[in-house]
């Protein structure tokens, strides 16, 4: 289960053009400033924005070959934790987590049982019957993660999953996230503008700047001898 991307996406005047591949089991972090194209890459992978040219291949399966072939978001089988989490506010925590299974035709009782097990795994089983709109940032983050992971996606996309948390909660959440992601199969891609998130959670780093990948490689290696752009980011993170 690997991910190979080589694509060009245009959104108005902005162009995202990049090529990378991530091996099975790897947790990669995509870092970059606001406006560097991170969200566009998430939307490309999720099937929410078309490529102008190029391919996206996941697990040997063609998700996109532009122009021409493009799988709908429903058909890609990804797990996505959206920026802002996008929990369904009128559903309970349990119903949110069970949603992907129900959409795949799993029976109600079985979907609920599996969802309950995922809530327990994230130590929030007590919140099962709470409406998503009443959850705190940290609770909602866990529910969103469980909702994305329950379908055991070959690619798990996390778009700024820690942004709902305050500084102290963030440090603890990084460690938890690292553990959860390490156990998950497939490719995990964490999108963040905080280098610290990447350092704590990921084993590979992709650095995006103005729609181009300017550096990629193992986290430790890149941070030991960072290129100029990354060095500036490291300095900011350590300040």
């Amino acid at each position, binding site marked *: 289960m690997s991910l190979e991307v080589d694509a060009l996406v245009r959104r108005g005047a902005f162009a995202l053009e990049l090529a990378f591949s991530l091996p099975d089991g790897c947790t990669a972090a995509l870092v970059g400033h606001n406006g560097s194209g991170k969200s566009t890459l998430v939307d490309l992978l999720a099937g929410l924005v078309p490529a102008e040219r190029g391919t996206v291949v996941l697990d040997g399966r063609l998700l996109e070959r532009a122009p021409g072939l493009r799988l709908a*978001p*429903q058909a890609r089988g990804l797990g996505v934790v959206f*920026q802002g989490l996008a*929990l369904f506010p009128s*559903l309970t925590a349990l119903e949110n987590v069970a*949603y*992907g299974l129900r*959409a795949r035709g799993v029976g109600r009782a079985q979907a609920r049982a599996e969802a309950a097990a995922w809530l327990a795994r994230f130590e929030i089983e007590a919140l099962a019957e709470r409406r998503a709109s009443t959850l705190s940032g940290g609770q909602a983050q866990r529910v969103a993660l469980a909702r994305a992971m329950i379908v055991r996606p070959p690619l798990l996309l996390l778009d700024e999953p820690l942004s709902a948390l305050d500084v102290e909660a963030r440090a603890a959440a990084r460690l938890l996230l690292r553990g959860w992601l390490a156990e998950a199969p497939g490719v995990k891609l964490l999108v963040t503008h905080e280098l610290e998130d990447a350092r704590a959670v990921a084993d590979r780093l992709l650095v995006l700047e103005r729609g181009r990948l300017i550096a990629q490689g193992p986290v430790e290696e890149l941070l030991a001898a960072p290129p100029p752009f990354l060095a500036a980011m490291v300095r900011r993170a350590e300040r």
Partner: protein
Amino acid sequence: MSLRTGRPGQAHAVLGLLGGAALVFFALPLVALVGRVTPAGLWAQLGAPAVQQALRLSLEVSLISLGLCVVFGFPLAFVLARVAFPGRALARGLVSLPMVLPPVVGGIALLAAFGRRGLLGGWLEQVGVVLPFTTAGAVLAVTFVAMPFLVTTLEAALASVDPRLEMAAATLGASRWRVLWTVTLPAVRPSLTAGLALCWARGLGEFGATITFAGNLEGRTQTMPLAVYDALQTDPEAAITLGLVLLAVSLTLLTALRGHIGRRR
């Protein structure tokens, strides 16, 4: 809450005074109407077969119309809110038009379209459908006047649903129908309730388009507002009582709606 200049007490007093005056303006005619009715007279009128018939017909016509408004109004609101097409601004104007058009004009327009000598009337008659001066015609007239209240309310709500929610549902494998049913619909439910109540209340009170297009036939097209009009010609006291009944039904409906929305906030 306080305004930036002046004492907040002063601002509240002025707003309270003017707002109170507006409320009195609305309440006074109703109070005057209630004052004209005796309980005995009310019961006597409610027992009259013609009144019961009109009330039953009003409920029947307004509820069938409400069903039509949902079946056709929801898709229309969805298209207006979500699909960019040439002429969308004009379509929006068309949908709002019945809200500002004198209902009598609406009735004339309906006759021009569906009347015996209307645009589609001849063709409709050939296939055995006659709308003018029938109960079905009354339903059509009420739908024409009331549906815009549902569509405009729903359209605004559908346009403001967070697109990320629907995208999240799609990436989780949900079909478009499932997204609509499990994500979009719950998100617009408060507006749907408000729109339905407004639409129904407007339908219950519909007079001009109905009498013009469907006529004033007892038992077939004479709904409550038309019965009030009829009574006014012969028995003004009865007209007041009937008016009060209609008013009570509408007020109950709208108050229930306001209470519902109030709880959600």
